[in-house]
């Protein structure tokens, strides 16, 4: 019997090349005759382009070509499409203003692409870009979602004169209103979910080439989903047959959502590669990443929770204004709707929920999915309300949660989702123990003696992952399928190459997917290689986002493995001269049940590729199977986070002294990889709560947090040593029982942190604090609190 491979903390196969600097990232790709692109970007948030003079730039040394929006329009290059149609409360489709890859007529945010210079060297391209003269008529700008709909606000797109993309709603408004009318207690909060900039360690990059011989393009690009990139760029923007565009996403250094989308830069250089007849490389500088990667979050919300006298939740009413930025990014429209409002039940039996979302355009970079994507915002709404209600009603915070937990499954929420399984009490109980909540009062007193304020905050979150059943997504407006594809190629000697449509950009798929295959086939992990990120090698794929890879991509692989084994049984039956029904596959061998007669996988594979003794009349040679898998439901990872902070009341500095996360991700393939994912997610969640915040100047629309001098990413010394644990309720509708773990940390953490900060300050009368809870905000909250007054 082989030792189980699933559930083992096997060291990541990919780390050798990453740690020794031998990975191949897009910027490492250099093609013969390669040129370099530099994009001229708008210095203004909003301006009319009265004219562009590129003559000096064209004449500059080394310049191969200069293109502007007019050139693209003349060549009939389309705008960048949005992949999700939201229908508004009046049954009208959302507003979809054009998103030209290079600005036409107007620029709409700082960093908007105006022109591209292609030159022999990057420095020549940059020098020439400075010679382009753009005659701007600067116009007033609006940057905050709260201001976008005010009368007289500057208009981003003429086709949306009130800056409104859609007003959308989910839930039963009448039932909610009735429940509020009967409530014993109502808790109301208004808050901002702060805008974030993704900051992948590898900036976006692309290398495009065109081969006249076969009239085909190749694009290397930092993408989380190369097939989607190919579909959108070929079919919707450039008007190419898909087979004439090969998209390769090699090693990618982090995405967090920001590399899901089809961006202007790679589109422009792919088109231009044919125009100039040479390969073109573009790599974003860090400042370009800050101003042109799709940002995340940016909600303004008013939320109300109705409770009965025992603290049972009766209804939830939420009104959110979501900033979409200047243009609709690829999945922008579904984030503050489908991935947000549907999560507002949280882990609770709240019977009636109504959520209205107003999505607005502003003169800022596009906003789209960022790690968690809608679900952190939903968790923040629910968990801030729950904790505030508990304090207002004098009910213990764990008790009020337990009183409202969903305990029977499947559970149909009032906001469209059906949770298949979970055990919320188990994760909460485990977290309370791991966090030593029992010892907290003693720690609080000890801190007080040192003049510090300690607080404890909970967050019991749920997420919908494993995106997504295509028919459900389609009914909700998705313009793409959300299945995944996988292929198992068993080589003649029994080693295996896996081709997956999932894409790893830090997640460790080359290890975890190999573990799944090794476990099923009973072969060593070293004998399994995983290939991803190349439309030329992989049959199809929808890519990696929404914690979907193992649940959907992993299942596609399992389905393909099932086919391999089924075929192997037939081959083995022939070789062993036994009935197929008597062959069982165990520990890497096909065995005649009840005997010691068997053929190993390698023997069967060899027979399949050297079919001398083989049932050729009934069976094709070869051992190579593929599968597409479309999930029947979302998966529902859930968990409990407990944060403990210590605040210096003199300076307002908040230190996270303990952070505990107990998560239920279903079955776990590799605990070490999962723990790494949780750590990263927590760092980003704590970052959102205490440090990170994208700031645009409200007057000029300039990006004030455009470098690391001003945008505060969490560093190692901002974080404690995390205490993490897991509890397991296997997913009921995929064969691995997995749910996904990539986003959980970022989803649960912000509410836990802010709940802890408010807990530390509640005795002073502080009821809420805005994210990020910077030292000055905390200091002001303390200063303006009314001492002695309980919140």
């Amino acid at each position: 019997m082989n030792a189980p491979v699933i559930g083992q903390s096997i060291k990541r196969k990919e780390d050798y090349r990453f740690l020794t600097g031998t990975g191949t990232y897009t910027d490492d790709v250099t093609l013969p005759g390669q040129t370099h692109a530099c994009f001229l970007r708008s210095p203004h948030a909003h301006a009319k382009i009265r004219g562009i003079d590129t003559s000096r730039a064209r004449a500059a040394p080394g310049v191969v070509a200069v293109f502007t929006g007019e050139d693209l329009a003349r060549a009939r290059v389309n705008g960048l499409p949005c992949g999700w149609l939201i229908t508004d409360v009046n049954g009208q489709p959302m507003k979809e203003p054009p998103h030209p890859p290079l600005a036409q007529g107007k620029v709409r945010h700082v960093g908007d692409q105006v022109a591209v210079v292609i030159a022999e060297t990057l420095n020549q391209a940059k020098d020439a870009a400075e010679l382009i003269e753009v005659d701007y008529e600067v116009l007033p700008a609006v940057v905050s979602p709260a201001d976008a709909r005010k009368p007289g606000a500057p208009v981003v797109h003429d086709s949306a004169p009130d800056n409104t993309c859609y007003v959308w709603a989910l839930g039963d408004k009448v039932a909610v209103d009735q429940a509020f009318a009967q409530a014993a207690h109502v808790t109301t909060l208004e808050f901002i979910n702060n805008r974030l900039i993704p900051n992948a360690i590898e900036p976006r990059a692309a290398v495009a080439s065109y081969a006249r011989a076969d009239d085909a393009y190749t694009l290397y690009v930092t993408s989380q989903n190369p097939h989607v990139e190919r579909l959108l760029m070929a079919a919707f923007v450039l008007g190419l047959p898909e087979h004439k565009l090969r998209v390769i996403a090699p090693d990618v250094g982090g995405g967090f959502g920001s590399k899901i989308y089809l961006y202007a830069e790679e589109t422009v250089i792919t088109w231009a590669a044919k125009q100039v007849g040479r390969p073109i490389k573009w790599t974003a500088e860090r400042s370009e990443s800050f101003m042109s990667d799709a940002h995340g979050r940016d909600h303004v919300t008013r939320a109300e929770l109705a409770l009965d006298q025992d603290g049972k939740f009766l209804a939830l009413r939420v009104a959110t204004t979501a900033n979409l930025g200047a243009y609709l990014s690829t999945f922008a429209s579904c984030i503050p709707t489908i991935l947000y409002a549907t999560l507002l039940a949280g882990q609770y039996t709240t019977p009636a929920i109504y959520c209205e979302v107003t999505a607005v355009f502003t003169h800022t970079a596009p906003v789209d999915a960022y790690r968690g994507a809608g679900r952190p915002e939903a968790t923040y709404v629910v968990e801030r309300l729950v904790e505030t209600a508990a304090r207002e009603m004098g009910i213990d915070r764990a008790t009020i949660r337990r009183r409202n937990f969903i305990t029977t499954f499947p559970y149909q929420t009032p906001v469209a989702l059906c949770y298949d399984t979970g055990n919320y009490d188990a994760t909460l109980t485990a977290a309370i123990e791991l966090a030593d909540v029992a010892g907290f009062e003693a720690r609080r007193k000890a801190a007080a003696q040192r003049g510090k304020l300690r607080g404890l905050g909970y967050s019991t979150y749920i997420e919908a992952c494993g995106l997504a059943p295509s028919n459900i997504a389609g009914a909700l407006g998705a313009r793409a399928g959300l299945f995944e594809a996988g292929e198992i190629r068993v080589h003649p000697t029994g080693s295996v190459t896996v081709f997956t449509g999932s894409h790893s950009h830090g997640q460790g798929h080359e290890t975890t997917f190999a573990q799944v295959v090794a476990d099923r086939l009973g072969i060593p992990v070293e004998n399994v290689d995983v290939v991803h990120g190349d439309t030329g090698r992989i049959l199809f794929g929808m890519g990696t986002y929404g914690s979907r890879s193992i649940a959907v991509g992993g299942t596609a692989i399992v389905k393909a493995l099932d086919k391999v084994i089924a075929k192997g049984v037939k081959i083995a039956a022939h070789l062993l001269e036994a009935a197929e029904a008597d062959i069982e596959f165990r520990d890497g061998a096909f065995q005649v049940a009840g005997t010691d007669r068997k053929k190993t996988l390698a023997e069967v594979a060899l027979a399949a590729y050297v079919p001398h003794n083989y049932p050729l009349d009934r069976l094709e040679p070869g051992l190579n199977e593929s599968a597409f898998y479309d999930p029947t439901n979302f998966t529902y990872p859930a968990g409990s986070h407990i944060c403990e902070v210590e605040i210096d009341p003199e300076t307002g500095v908040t230190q996270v002294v303990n952070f505990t996360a107990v998560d239920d991700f279903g079955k776990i393939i590799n605990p070490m990889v999962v723990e790494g994912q949780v750590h990263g997610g927590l760092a980003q969640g704590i970052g959102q709560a205490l440090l990170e915040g994208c700031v645009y100047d409200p007057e000029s629309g300039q990006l004030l947090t455009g470098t690391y001098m001003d945008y505060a990413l969490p560093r190692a010394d901002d974080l404690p040593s995390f205490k993490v644990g897991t509890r397991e309720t296997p997913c009921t509708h995929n064969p691995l029982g997995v749910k996904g773990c990539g986003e959980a940390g970022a989803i649960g953490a912000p509410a836990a942190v802010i709940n802890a900060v408010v807990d530390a300050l509640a005795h002073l009368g502080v009821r809420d604090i805005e994210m990020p809870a910077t030292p000055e905000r905390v200091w002001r909250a303390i200063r303006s609190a009314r001492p002695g007054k309980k919140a």
Partner: protein
Amino acid sequence: MYAFAYHRPATLKQAASLLRKTEGAKALSGGQSLIPALKMRLADPPVLVDLGGIAELRGIRLEGTTLIIGAMARHAEVAAAKEVMTGIPALAQLAAGIGDRQVRNLGTLGGALANNDPAADYPAAVLALDAVIHTNKRAISADRFFKGLMETALKPDEIITAVAFPLPTRAAYVKFRNPASRYAIVGVFVAETAGRVRVAVTGAASCVFRVKPMEKKLAGKFAPEAIAKVRVAADKLNSDIHASAEYRSHLITVIAQRAVTAALSGK
């Protein structure tokens, strides 16, 4: 980066003459501010004169009750030098807290002073310790060296050679860091030297400055409570997305008290 001519002279005299020869020529010491500015195309000097090859700018030594640090001493060297750790431990500690490891291995004392970034750490030490800045032309007292936002008493061809720090009886530097850049939002250096107390604040305004009301109180009684009520008015202080002037005003008092406490504890 724009193109520039690069020189690496071996003597101070050659360096000064190179700086004189071309208008806009810039001296390059550790490059930790200048190189990023060049890379972002925010500076366009025609000539760079690298001071790294000039032996006479290096070295750290104690002369009686004065600590002399060469202008090209790297932050990491200052942080680790026995002479500094025993003579002015607060200065060693300050140097150990500048930027990150990479910055400390390249950045220099002279470069930091000549650049006079409003949030740099060294100006607070130089001003509070009443150090003397020696150049290839003259000696300048700390009080006359720092002129304003990124502005000093240095002439275009004037090069800092060394800084002479009188040894204090007690001193400490406490920095309240900007969470993003980790520069000082408020940094306070408190020093008592030969019976006189000086308090210098960096990060809070356009240029490092002394807080004379605090110095007076501390001369009477060197204890944190002595300055608990001394406020620096907010109207001349910086205000940005990380800290308002009002908050900085509050922090100066808090951080100065902590610096006094640290100086008393000798840690």
